[in-house]
């Protein structure tokens, strides 16, 4: 198994684990952790291809991953602010209890 395949399999496994966290866990913060894991798995994919298959754009993979990291941080910030605001309303972070659109 060459290193590229190994990296891609790890990335796929991390993506699956993140997806499982989002689907199974009922706590909003745990779901957000799963989302972060999925984003990082995608970044690993980009770096693996940047390293093992150099193509016409020499810095494409690295720059994309930097942007993805920044966007992941911004999305985590906004998501967590949303969770705090929702907690103030529903007094719980259980995703099953947030079933009303009107407060």
């Amino acid at each position, binding site marked *: 198994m*060459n*290193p*590229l*395949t*190994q*990296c*891609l*399999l*790890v990335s*796929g*496994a991390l993506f*699956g*684990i*993140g*997806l*499982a966290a989002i*689907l*199974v866990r*009922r*706590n909003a*913060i*745990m779901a957000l*952790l*799963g989302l*972060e*894991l999925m984003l*990082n798995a995608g*970044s*690993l994919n980009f*770096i*693996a291809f*940047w*390293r*093992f*298959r*150099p193509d016409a*754009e*020499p*810095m494409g993979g*690295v*720059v994309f*991953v*930097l*942007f993805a*990291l*920044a*966007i*992941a*941080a*911004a999305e*985590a*910030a*906004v998501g*967590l*602010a949303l969770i*705090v*605001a929702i*907690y103030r309303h529903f007094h719980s*972070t*259980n995703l099953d209890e947030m079933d009303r659109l009107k407060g």
Partner: protein
Amino acid sequence: MQSDFFTLVCWGVMAAAAIAMMMRRPVHAVLVFVVSLVGLAVIYLQLRAEFVAFAQILISVGAVAILVVFTLLLTRNGGAEAELKRTAGSAIVGLAMAGLVMGCIGICVLASSAVETSGAVTPATVRQIGEALMTQYILPLEVLGLLLTAALMGAVILAMDPARRHNERKP
């Protein structure tokens, strides 16, 4: 480069991620998740992307994990009381779906002819990344600045205490 250490780190990252998602208390889950992110940074270092590895530690551990921890403190969720009403059926379906996605990705990867091309490794020095960001990718960089500003303002307003917001409306 293909060595036992690399395989060990890969298994460590997957194990840490799996354990983090299974932990009952969110605080423990965040701490184990940080371990898996640091392992991912070590993988980036092995793949000769040093800038990305250090940026990953700075952003993921220094910002995202701290944010999650602060939210746990603000929502009094360290005890994980919110998990008790889960049914076993939905958990099994969720795991099955995730397993299906993982299986599909695995089959695609293993069946493909993705072979590493033995070309020269382009070293990603900081100077080259900076030049690429400032010449070729300048537009995404500026848009990212706008996005981060919007996210900052949005997060502050969303998490603001509603009582203080009413007080600020008074002249």
